[in-house]
C-alpha cells in the first residue's frame, strides 16, 4: 500500500514534458503520485496521460476549500486510474477566489459531467465549456455555495433545535 508504482518515474517525466516543467510532483507516504498543475496545462496533461499512458478511467473529481491559503483558496482534485497497469495518480489545480474558472474535462471523460456540476454546486467553481453547468443536488433557487467553509451546516432559520444543546 505504501510502495509507489513502478511506472511512477515515467509518469513524472511525462508530466514534466506536458506541462513545460511548470507542474510539481510529489510522492506521498501512501504511495500516491500527486501532481500540482495550473489551469492552462490541465487539458494537455490529462490528454497526454489518457492517450499515451493509459489513464482512461476518471475515478473521481471533487473540489476543496482552504480559506487560509490566500491566492489559492479553492482547488479541484482529479483521481485518474490506469486499469491495465493498475496505477492511480492524483492531479490538483489551485484556483484563486477571484478567478474560479477551469476548463472542463467533459470532452475527455463523459463521466466528468455530473461530477463537475456537483463541484460547481458545492463550491461555485465555473467549468468552462461544460454543456450544462447548473446546480445538481441543491435547489436551483439556492443563492450560495454551501460547502464553502464560511457557511454553517445547519439551516439557521430553524426554531425547534437549540444550538447550545448540540454543542455548536
Amino acid at each position, binding site marked *: 500500500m505504501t510502495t509507489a508504482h513502478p511506472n511512477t518515474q515515467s509518469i513524472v517525466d511525462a508530466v514534466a514534458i506536458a506541462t513545460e516543467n511548470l507542474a510539481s510532483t510529489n510522492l506521498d507516504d501512501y504511495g500516491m503520485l500527486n501532481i500540482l498543475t495550473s489551469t492552462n496545462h490541465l487539458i494537455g496533461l490529462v490528454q497526454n496521460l489518457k492517450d499515451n499512458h493509459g489513464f482512461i478511467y476518471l475515478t473521481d473529481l471533487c473540489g476543496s476549500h482552504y480559506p487560509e491559503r490566500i491566492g489559492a483558496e479553492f482547488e479541484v482534485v482529479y483521481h485518474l486510474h490506469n486499469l491495465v497497469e493498475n496505477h492511480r495518480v492524483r492531479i490538483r489545480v489551485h484556483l484563486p477566489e477571484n478567478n474560479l474558472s477551469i476548463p472542463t474535462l467533459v470532452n475527455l471523460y463523459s463521466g466528468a459531467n455530473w461530477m463537475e456540476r456537483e463541484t460547481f454546486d458545492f463550491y461555485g467553481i465555473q467549468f468552462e465549456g461544460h454543456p450544462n453547468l447548473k446546480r445538481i443536488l441543491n*435547489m436551483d433557487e439556492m443563492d450560495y455555495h454551501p460547502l464553502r467553509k464560511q457557511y454553517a451546516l445547519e*439551516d439557521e432559520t430553524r426554531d425547534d*433545535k437549540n444550538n447550545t444543546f448540540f454543542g455548536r
Partner: protein
Amino acid sequence: MVKIGEAPEGIEGQGFFATSLDKAIGLARANSLWPLPFATSCCGIEFMATMGANYDLARFGSERLAFTPRQTDLLMVMGTIAKKMGPVLKQVYDQMAEPKWVLSVGACACSGGIFDTYSVLQGIDRIIPVDVYVPGCPPRPEQIIEGLMKIQELAKNESLRRRNSDEYKKMLESYNIETAE
C-alpha cells in the same frame, strides 16, 4: 371459528345487524386502509421488509398499495424529505381525497433525524398535518405495524363530521392547504 374483528355494539337478529353508521363506517375504513408508500430512503427498505411475507402488512387490510394519491387513504412518508422534495410531498397530499391520514415513519420524517443540515426539511409536519409518528432509524417492521394499528384506531373512532368541522378547516389553513369550498 375464526374471529376477524370485534363487532361494534348493535342490535342483532336473524339475518340482520343494526348499528350506528359511524361505527360501521369506522370499522370498514379501519380494516381497508389503502396506503401510498412515499418511500424515499432507508425506511423504505424496512417498509419493503414489512410488506414481505415475514411481517406482512397485507393482513391489516393494506393489501393494495398504490402510488397514486387519487385512490389511497393513507400517506406513509418513509425516509428523509429534503427541502427540494417538500413541494412534491405537499402536492401529493393535496391530491388525496378526504378522509386521509398521514403516517410519518422514521426519525427523518418526524423531525429531520440525524440530518440537521441546510437541505433537509426538519420534519414533514412543517408542511402537512401528521396523524401518527413512528420513531426509529429505521424503525423495526413491528414498529411500523404498530403505527399502522394506531392509524386504524383513529380511523375506527373518527366522527363522520370531522373533515367538515371548523376546527379541521382551521388546522388545514394553518398549513396553507386550500380546502374546496
